């Protein structure tokens, strides 16, 4: 019974539907927003003729459905339209900025996951010890402090005072890995703090719960080493809810990247979102919403599938109990 296969297929279909629904929604939202995007771009001083010309160029004078259809058609051909305020092809814009944001958010999540799990396990297995208490306090603090403030403080500490790290900008890891590390150090750290704290907390709680389960007692009773008991038998169970947590954290990190990119002057998707919304640059906004949806849906899909792999109980629709 390849339940994993059926499960996966269902998830994929659902994902496609979601993407479609969101594309319609994104399009609607942008076009129903109050305000005239053309004037926002050309400025208040622009004369009528120029305004009218641009309106036609952007198909804004055509009926709604036609506009949506034209847009979708363009997307399938790979044409996302042209940014109104930034004078570039939207596809190019996103193509340039998306890798930047991904190269910051993905490492942040990975670091958060790895360290979060490590910290959580340390706390759980040394429950009540000084390490546990100290780390728990740190985790609580990390949850409460605003990203913005930490960011500025870090810039002053590492950039101005100590002069260790460059205080803004971005370098691609493919061009200069060292430069990339130096420039990404602060933003990635900032993005990783909250998720790491949250994951550590959850892992700790889960581990503590799992460690008290009967099947762990069985493992011990059969002479398995403590290490194996903790890191194989207990951890696998404890990590199951973490998968869902990661999905949530991915969203938080994406949101955090808007702030982080602002503070560290990084030309990524976060910054692009902010500018394009403020400027009513609707071709960009639409494209971004679509791209982000696809990414989020994809990430969720991956996580769902791995969830099914991690916990076999999830995949079974009809549970045949063997007597």
């Amino acid at each position, binding site marked *: 019974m390849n339940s994993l296969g059926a499960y996966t297929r269902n998830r994929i279909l659902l994902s496609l539907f979601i993407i479609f629904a969101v594309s319609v929604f994104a399009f609607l939202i942008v076009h129903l927003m109050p305000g005239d995007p053309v004037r926002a771009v050309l400025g208040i001083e622009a004369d009528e003729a120029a305004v009218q010309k641009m309106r036609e160029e952007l198909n804004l004078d055509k009926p709604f459905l036609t506009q949506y259809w034209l847009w979708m058609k363009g997307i399938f051909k790979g044409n996302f339209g042209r940014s109104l305020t930034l004078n570039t092809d939207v596809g190019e814009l996103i193509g340039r900025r998306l890798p930047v944001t991904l190269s910051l958010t993905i490492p942040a999540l990975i670091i958060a996951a790895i360290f979060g799990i490590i910290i959580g396990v340390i706390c759980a297995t040394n429950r009540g010890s000084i390490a546990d208490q100290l780390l728990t306090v740190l985790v609580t603090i990390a949850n409460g402090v605003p990203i913005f403030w930490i960011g500025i403080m870090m810039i002053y500490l590492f950039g101005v005072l100590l002069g260790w790290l460059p205080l803004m900008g971005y370098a691609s890891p493919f061009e200069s890995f060292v430069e990339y590390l130096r420039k990404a150090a602060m933003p990635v750290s900032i993005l990783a703090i909250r998720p790491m704290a949250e994951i550590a907390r959850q892992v700790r709680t889960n581990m503590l719960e799992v460690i008290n389960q009967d099947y762990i007692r*069985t493992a011990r009773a*059969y002479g*398995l080493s403590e290490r194996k008991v903790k890191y194989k038998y207990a951890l696998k169970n404890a990590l199951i809810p973490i998968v869902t947590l990661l999905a949530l954290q991915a969203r938080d990190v994406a949101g955090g990247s808007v702030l982080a990119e602002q503070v560290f002057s990084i030309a990524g998707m976060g910054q692009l979102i902010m500018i394009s919304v403020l400027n009513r640059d609707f071709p960009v906004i639409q494209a971004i919403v679509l791209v982000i949806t696809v990414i989020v849906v994809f990430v969720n899909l991956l996580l769902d599938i791995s969830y099914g792999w991690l916990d076999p109980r999830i995949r079974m629709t009809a549970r045949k109990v*063997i007597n």
Partner: protein
Amino acid sequence: MTQRSEVLLDVRNLKVSFFTHFGEVKAVNDISYYVNRGEVIALVGESGCGKSVSQMSVIQLIQSPPGRIMGGEVIFEGKDLLKYGANSKEMRAIRGKEISMVFQEPMTSLNPVFTIGKQLEEVISTHMGISKKEAWEKGVKALAAVDIPDPEERMKNYPFELSGGMRQRVLIAMAIACQSKLIIADEPTTALDVTTQAQIMELLMSIVKERGTSLVIVTHNLGLVSRYSERIYVMYAGRIVESGTTRDILTSPRHPYTVGLLNSVPRLEDDKDKELVPIEGMPPNLIDLPDTCAFMPRCRYAFDKCAGSRAPELRKVGENDHYAACYLDAGEGSIQ
């Protein structure tokens, strides 16, 4: 029957306490017992009397904190296990290989995210140092030995795909997979329905007899005990209050608690109108146990000596190593 020949496990003066907010709980308050090779004995008592704790302490499975082994010796094949650390190599080599324990909650005793096969194979290869493939094969054989049909297929199943009875069989399979010398079965059938209970017990017994494995059955179920065990130890409030052959204990119990237990169990041959006589009162609080006999508050036969003296020691009350911890002398009136 030769007593004390070929002793496999000799527990002497075992004391185990739990340290809680409320004080020290003397869960096991100086017990001694032994198991011979190939013997089946039973440890009987109510919930909370310390029988499970004592068995878990034998293989040092008690979480410390809050529990702690306060004293005593656990001599297995001539070596005192308590000299080894709880997580030491030596103890881990014992657990699952020399001494295996079967717990009472089959539904939750197996890891839900690994297949049966994986769990069996893990245990087997840990102890036997053979390849995974060979360990898998042995696992299949173990499943077959516990009468699980289609063992190859079952190895690939997850625990939640099996019924309670099946899971218990798997746990037994795990216990016998490494040819343990001693199996401790802690309430092995309590969580199962009646028919399955019988099946499991028969299975266990046949395996044990076939392989010459010693078996300690921990239970509150006297019916089990009467059928399968050779000797019985009765525990109350952390102490052993009576010990002897099954026959002796069942036919002429010498401790009021044992009498009470027997009276409260219905028997097929009894008159259907016969009333069940429960033991009055509640089991004692194991914190701040008084020095006197722990059963005294509930004992019908208590007399002035009981209140004025310390808790009675085990004294020989009959042939065949029949001991009871009670001040009632043999022959001083029957306590039937």
